[in-house]
């Protein structure tokens, strides 16, 4: 190596002023101002174009249309009056979106958990069957699955027309437990009677009491070391108070059995599901389950092997090993990506549009087709999804921070 001489750094006088265009601090500010100005200018230009073009096309740019009548019927929703304002239509769409989303999430969680665990099963056949499930559903577009359920299984599928629907009775009585047709299904439901207000008050009391009991059991367990069983206790408290409330209101709810109407066009009573809802919820549930299964599998593999060996060492059964050692740790790892999948599922309910499920996207599109201004309608549509996603992300981040702290 040749000898290198290190020159001492030049003396810098801290008071010496740097010319402004060489000053990093000034440059940083200038750079950011330029960047913001460019983006703001671009957005302003785009919106200016939009407004000019809309003006040229004679499209309103205010939100007054929300108060005007909707002017179309919602299929399978007899309760919706076409004369009610557009904002009510948005609420109906929102309700349907979340209904399909929640049912889909339940299906996806259960199936995903089972398939995810099965993929790691020591049973060759079970593991292979789970792999088959995952690789099949993961690589098909959810829209194709939804349309398959909607048209190949329902509309053109093996189910009979509504006028000659399959009716499954409840233990030999005339009450229908299930009505199956190719457009709508009916199951028993509950109908609110006059005094349901009283019931809702006791319902609130029941929820508060259940929370109180859960906290009490936890504290008791912390103090004395007795097993808390807080879920059982809270659920029991809730059920007892809610049932008392039901009878206190003189029977707030009554059972309603589904019956095919005489003209064979609709189902009266009970809880009615149309094929769009079943197809959307089921297809998205099964599709998302394949993603959740992969997450669960990865999370189980991420639990250190020593944990499972320790469980074996203290002679836990296979079930106990999973229930008390592996799953509690794996689910903690799996939670953030799983919630992401839930968010995707709720966003994907917008695909219900292909099987005419009256969720918010379909209603927005129909409403635009009926002459409502597109930009505002779509802005509302995006806003709804956005608020939902951001709220869930915030909650998730908060929760995540909490459980991470518990962990280490």
């Amino acid at each position: 190596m040749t000898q290198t001489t290190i020159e001492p750094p030049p003396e810098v006088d801290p008071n010496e002023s740097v010319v402004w265009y060489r000053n990093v601090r000034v440059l940083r500010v200038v750079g950011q101002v330029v960047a913001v100005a460019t983006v703001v200018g671009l957005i302003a230009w785009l919106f200016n174009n939009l407004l000019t073009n809309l003006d040229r096309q004679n499209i309103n740019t205010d939100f007054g249309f929300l108060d005007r009548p909707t002017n179309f019927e919602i299929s399978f929703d007899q309760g919706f009056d076409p004369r009610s304002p557009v904002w009510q239509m948005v609420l109906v769409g929102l309700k349907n979106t979340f209904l399909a989303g929640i049912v889909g999430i339940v299906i996806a969680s259960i199936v995903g958990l089972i398939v995810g665990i099965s993929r790691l099963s020591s049973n060759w056949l079970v593991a292979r069957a789970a792999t088959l499930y995952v690789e099949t559903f993961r690589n098909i577009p959810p829209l194709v699955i939804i349309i398959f359920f909607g048209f190949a299984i329902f509309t053109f599928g093996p189910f009979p027309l509504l006028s000659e629907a399959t009716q499954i009775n409840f233990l030999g009585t005339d009450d229908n437990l299930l009505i199956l047709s190719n457009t709508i299904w009916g199951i028993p439901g509950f109908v609110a009677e006059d005094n349901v207000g009283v019931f809702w008050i006791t319902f609130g009391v029941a929820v508060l009491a259940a929370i109180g009991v859960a906290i009490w059991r936890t504290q008791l367990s912390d103090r004395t070391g007795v097993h808390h069983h807080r879920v059982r206790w809270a659920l029991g408290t809730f059920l007892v108070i809610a049932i008392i409330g039901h009878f206190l209101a003189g029977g707030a709810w009554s059972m309603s059995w589904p019956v095919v109407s005489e003209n064979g066009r609709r189902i009266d009573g009970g809880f009615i599901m149309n094929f769009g809802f079943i197809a959307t919820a089921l297809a998205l549930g099964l599709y998302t389950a394949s993603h959740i299964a992969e997450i669960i599998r990865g999370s189980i593999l991420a639990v250190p092997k020593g944990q499972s060996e320790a469980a074996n060492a203290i002679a836990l059964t296979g079930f106990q090993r999973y229930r008390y050692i592996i799953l509690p740790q794996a689910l903690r790892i799996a939670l953030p990506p799983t919630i992401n999948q839930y968010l995707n599922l709720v966003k994907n309910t917008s695909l219900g549009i292909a099987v005419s499920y009256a969720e918010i996207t379909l209603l927005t599109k129909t409403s635009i087709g009926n002459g409502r201004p597109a930009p505002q309608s779509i802005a509302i549509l995006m806003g709804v999804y956005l608020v939902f996603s951001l709220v869930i992300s915030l909650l998730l981040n908060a929760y995540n921070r909490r459980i991470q702290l518990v962990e280490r």
Partner: protein
Amino acid sequence: MTDPQFPMTQTELGAEEPIAIPVAESGPRQKLPPGKWLRRNLFNNWYNSLLTIVIGALLLFVAVRAFSFVFITGRWEPVRANLTLFQIGTFPRDEEWRVVAQVLIWTAALGLGVGAAVAGAKFRALQAGVEYVTDPALDRLKRYWALVLLLLVWLFFADTIGPLLLTVASLALAWGGYAAASRVSGPNVGLLWSVVGVLGVLGFQIVSGFFGLGWLWMGLPIAVAVYALLGRPDTDDVKRQRRIQLIGVLVTFAVLFGVYTAVDSVGVEWDDWEGLQLNLLAAAIAIALSFPLGLLLALARRSSFPALRVMATTYIEIIRGVPLISLLLMAQFFIGFFLNTDTPLSLFTRAIAAMTLFTAAYVAEIVRGGLQAVPKGQMEAGNSIGLPAWKVTQLIVLPQALRAVIPAMVGQFISLFKDTSLLLIIGKLELLGVREIVHGQPDFRGFGIAESLVYVAFVFWAISFTMSRESQRLERKLGVGER
């Protein structure tokens, strides 16, 4: 009697040579005799036996039903009669030769590209002084079994000799390209990539036509080739060399511009591209366009400028919070209003714009993950040798970050490919949309619904499955997450 308290340990201790087990597990997989294998993997305790029987019966039932659906009860006439419609939609039939030429050119380019990759790997192995090993040909074919199956299904459904000829010709071209390219010596591999690029653009333009800005696209790979050819290090005068290269590139562009202006042949417009062709094309264009945008967003999100960070984060979070379909509806109804164009943009262009804006947010998050995976010491090392910040990013951070994100990008491409089915909802005739036309034909009304859906699902599945397997292989090969 089995003791349910010790399911795992008992079977292991009960084996004949308990000590040998860990050795057998860590060594290469032992081939067990069938009886022993069955007992160990399917019937090792009572509940596994029960599960085996239940799941086995279920699988058998599904398999029998699937078999009878595919081979006995299934009415595949709608698919069989409309095979071309599924591939290219209502693409003008007298221009069909363009699609055939495109397939041939692209398969040749694919063969050349794979060959170039192999040649490059061979060269690097040679330089590193290690032996270059390939998997046996059969193993390589096995990896693509889903695609092979798809090809066989197409050939089975076809009732003319055309598709078979096309398949044979394109396979021959691909193989020829591969064989030729893999023999190219190391330093020339770069030129080979330019040829692949030229063929890629040519395949595109044989359909879209030779006019407008087409010369620019074609100019890029040719200019790279010219630059490389003129850049042989046989002169000491670097400045003069640079000048010659620059002039060469400019002349190339000028000549191409002249040729394209002279030819000026309008092909088939983008808006007429339909069927599976549209799905593949839309996904490819959208991912290619969204990559630079996503890269910029990712860099902005990690920038030290708070203003840039806030803007990039806002964009990414807004886009990720809404479903793609809302953006597509925007494209359908009013995205053109944002621009001051005299003629309205075609629906395809608007849809591509929506898909690009959407995918860019996801690409940004992927690239950000890659950027975060680069150790901080790398940047500090770059700073310490006096590189300016943008050089550190360009020369040190990005090459490492982008290598790590390749598998995730393939995953994003698969997801985008699946999402192209949503073009149906805004009225583009992609693969799934063609189905509705098929069942609108008087001959095929109201039957074969499940069959045509299964066919569409299978096409999507075969392509996505193969790509996802490739991305997993790539992930293992690149050793992502292992260092």
